[in-house]
Each structure stands twice: as C-alpha cells, then as structure tokens.
C-alpha cells in the first residue's frame, strides 16, 4: 500500500515560524483557534505532551447543543520550529498529520498541513516513538562508553 487518502492545505501567515509552532502546540494559543466556528475548545481539556510518543488531545464543544468532539493523537515528530507530526489512530485507519513551517524570510511563514492515511506497518505512533527511544538510549550508551 502506498499513498491512500491525502490532503494538503497551505496558508501563509504574518508571523515567525517559532510563534506559529507555539500556536500549534501551546494550550493557551490552541484554545483560541483550534475548534471550527460554533465550537469552543476548553483549555482544561487540552493535553499537550510535546515529545515523540506524547499525547495531543483536544475536546471541541458545540456552542449550539454542547456535543463534544474529542481528538486523540500521539506526537511522532517534534522539531521546533520546522516540523510537527502526529498520528490519530482512531481516524480513517490511522491518520497522520504533518505540519511544516516554512520561513518566507519577509516576516511571513507558510504553514503546510499534509494529512495521509498511514500504511499499517507504521500505524502506531508508539511503535515509531519506541524506536526513537531505543536510538536515544543507544546514543546515551555510546556517550557513556566514551566518557569511561
């Protein structure tokens, strides 16, 4: 299986990549814009554990009837201010969202959102994060050897 469902969305904002990255990853920013019109995103329900394997969760509450829409994702890559990747396992068989922040050099930044279904073998963010953690441990181990 190669590429499946795909979506690319681009938007240019008058802000630095750092500020935009923070907007996408800090609850006090997220609550202002995350939910669509007609919903609120209570800050108390936003979970951001900003590291590979960490949780990213939001609850959007409909103003009209109080219905709640919960998003549960897991970060796969966290690289301020260039790139942010998370996976929602429960959506469309595993939905991967990649946000790239491109500094246009004139005070503006292009934010490119790319969403795609995930091939089954990469489906769990935990699997990837686990691999990254193993590599980190390996690096520590090598560094320890060098110190000794």
């Amino acid at each position, binding site marked *: *299986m*190669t*590429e*499946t*469902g*795909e*979506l690319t*969305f681009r*938007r240019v*904002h*008058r*802000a630095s990549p750092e*500020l935009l990255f923070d*907007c996408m990853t800090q609850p006090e*920013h997220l609550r*202002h*814009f*995350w939910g*669509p*019109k007609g919903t609120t995103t209570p800050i108390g329900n936003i979970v951001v554990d900003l590291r590979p394997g960490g949780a990213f969760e939001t609850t959007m509450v409909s103003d009209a009837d109080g219905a709640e829409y919960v998003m549960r994702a897991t970060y796969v890559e966290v690289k301020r201010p260039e790139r942010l990747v998370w996976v929602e396992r*429960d*959506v*469309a*068989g*595993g939905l991967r969202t990649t946000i790239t922040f491109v500094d246009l050099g004139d005070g503006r930044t292009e*934010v490119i*959102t790319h*969403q795609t*279904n995930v091939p089954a073998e990469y489906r769990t963010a935990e699997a990837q994060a686990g691999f990254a953690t193993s590599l980190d441990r390996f690096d520590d181990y090598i560094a320890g050897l060098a110190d000794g």
Partner: protein
Amino acid sequence: MTIVADELSLVFSALADPTRRSILERLAEGDATVNELTEPSDLTQQAISKHLKVLERARLISRTQAGQSRPCVLEAERLDSAVDWIEQNRQIWADRHDRLEEHLAALRSRSEGSR
C-alpha cells in the same frame, strides 16, 4: 458523513491503486462485465478479478445477479463519501487557519499596545 472511519480506510486503500482507479473511471461510463473490463487492459482476467474483489470489499462497486456475466456497477455514493471526507477536512483546516489569523492579529495589536 455516511461511512465510519474503519470503512474509510478500506475505501482509501482501494483507491490507492491506478488500475482500480481506471476500472472505476470505466464504470462511471456504465456497467461492465469482467470481460469488458479486461479487454482494454494489459492484465489477465484473473488479475482484473482480484482488483474487482478489493473494490467490492470497499463497496465501491457491486456485482449484479443478472445472468452468468454479473456486470459490475459503480457505487457512486460511496465514492462521493470518500471525497466528502477530504473536503470536510479541508474545510476544518481552512476555518482553523482563519481563526489562527484572527488570533495572530490580536497578539500583534496587544504587543503594539504594550509598547
């Protein structure tokens, strides 16, 4: 949305293959039998049948019970649901960025005001 997430992944993986997409394009022009679908392609009837099974499992096509030939029928509504899903998601991100733009403007005016 009329189809649930798990089914959506079936639909998307069915759509990922160029042969299957060309089969759907052919069926959009009208119902066709396996023979009629095999003729214009380089593939064997067996290979085409395999692709049809994937499309059938994703319920993008159905097979009628009319006689031996069992023509394939495009389930257009199902295909529309997949396209709808992509469109809905695009709309969510468009709204989100509209609101982000407002939020950034508010941040700017706040920092200008504090100077």
